[in-house]
């Protein structure tokens, strides 16, 4: 009971502190901007811990964060091996191949209205295929190891990336294209100096969406066959053994990897599309 009381009390105090901080004259400073979400996150963990202990929730339903943290700290080699297998090999390879080929295909079909109209619906169809259907097929085609996971990722990110790039390539203004024409610029000059830069906000939109899709794809694909390592493999086997603390530790790795991945792409975007009204700030 005291655990519950402590959790409630902590919650109220943290809420009060955050409200005070957000409304204070310091609310625009860097420190406060960082402190508010940190306090929020810590509160969630403390309340979680307090409620689980206070109500004596069985660890199979929900382990307390402290138990997850202990498991995390003591399983670092395994978590690292899984991370390399699933994230570095499966996700990143598939992401780079999928996004790269989508941009290349978008440029290749750019000059052909026929191909654009033909390929976009086909791409749409492929994107609509459920991953639980395509993943086993990819495993049949490319084997149990990370190659088949990368293939699933390619299938997942290709279409959103293609659509965004095609849209981006059409984003330059008619006047800007006329300007290039008055210089008698070639197709490639116009592409490199006008249309690709103008497409960057769209391309990065696709790249950001794809980070999340890629990670989900790589993890879920491992449910359908994999060597005895990988985040998806670990989650499915540890659930079977009712070792929920390990499952949560893998989820924590996935959450951290996903956030850092997204953040890194967003950071590059800031550098590349600094000129766009949404980034000027």
């Amino acid at each position, binding site marked *: 009971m005291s655990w519950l009381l402590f959790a409630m009390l902590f919650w109220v105090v943290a809420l009060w502190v955050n409200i005070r901080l957000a409304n204070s004259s310091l609310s625009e400073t860097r420190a406060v901007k960082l402190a508010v979400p940190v306090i929020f996150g810590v509160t969630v963990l403390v309340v979680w811990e307090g409620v689980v202990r206070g109500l004596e929730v069985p660890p199979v339903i929900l382990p307390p964060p402290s138990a997850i943290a202990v498991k995390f700290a003591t399983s670092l080699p395994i978590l690292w091996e899984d991370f390399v297998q699933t994230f570095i090999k499966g996700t990143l390879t598939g992401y780079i191949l999928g996004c790269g080929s989508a941009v290349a295909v978008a440029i290749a079909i750019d000059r052909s209205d026929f191909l654009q109209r033909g390929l976009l619906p086909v791409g749409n169809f492929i994107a609509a295929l459920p991953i639980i259907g395509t993943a086993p097929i990819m495993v049949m085609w490319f084997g149990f190891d990370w190659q088949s996971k990368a293939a699933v990722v390619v299938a997942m990110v290709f279409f959103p990336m293609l659509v965004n790039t095609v849209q981006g390539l059409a984003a330059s*203004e008619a*006047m*800007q294209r*006329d*300007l*290039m*024409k*008055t*210089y*008698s*610029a070639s197709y490639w*000059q116009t592409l490199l*100096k*006008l249309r690709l*830069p103008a497409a*960057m906000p769209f391309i990065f939109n696709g790249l950001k969406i794809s980070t999340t899709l890629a990670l989900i794809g790589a993890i879920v694909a491992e449910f359908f066959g994999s060597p005895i390592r990988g985040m998806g493999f670990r989650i499915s086997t540890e659930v079977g053994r009712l070792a929920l603390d390990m499952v949560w530790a893998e989820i924590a790795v996935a959450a951290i990897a996903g956030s850092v991945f997204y953040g890194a792409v967003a950071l590059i975007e800031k550098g590349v*599309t*600094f*000129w*766009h*009204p949404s980034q*000027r700030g």
Partner: protein
Amino acid sequence: MTSDAVIAARDLGLTFQTNDGPVHALKDVNLQIARGDFVSFIGPSGCGKTTFLRVVAGLEEPTAGQITVNGMSPDEARRARAYGYVFQAAGLFPWRTIAGNVKLPLEIMGFTRAEQEKRVKKVLQLVDLEGFERKFPWQLSGGMQQRASIARALAFDADILLMDEPFGALDEIVRDHLNEQLLKLWARTGKTIAFVTHSIPEAVYLSTKIVVMSPRPGRIHDVIESPLPRERPLDIRDTPEFLEVAHRVREGLRAGHAYEG
């Protein structure tokens, strides 16, 4: 067609096919522009001023008659880099600095690095934008952006300058200043300039020749040769000669409208 005409149009027509039927943007346009002329096009909205400039630039294909630019077809002239085009909006690329924007045509046309730097410096000086090389377009005022776009059109030193309401969105004071600078530039470089405007004083102040147009179908109503000297201080606008020309332009515009009704 005289051979020294830089731009010569004969019975030029352009009809756009739209969903609501054909639009006669230009009809029976005959016009000669000589080397070193400063020609203004004035007329109500929709009378084909922009369309005429775009035909000269090879951005639009005429559907009737002929037009030559430097004795060539507009397309050939475009490939020979015969003209610089200044659009109504500055249209600078936001991802390039001011210097980078002015450099754009030079990069496309394959000038050497050193030559690019030299020319950028020169034309930015010409439009009074030294010191803003590293700024991005959105960090500049509208007037400065428009000056940068003029610098961009001047950078590759084409003989002809086509300007479509370049100062339309600017306030009167900035406009006066840019008008004065444009005249100086014209006197110094001897370029041929075709200039679209909605302002009678601007047209009279700048031009050696004023083309008054009327709409539906877009055609030339009157061509007025200005008797004003080439040397023009701003206060020339208060002289009787100036007012006389302005009066003729206004009459022309009014008659063009009556004709339509």
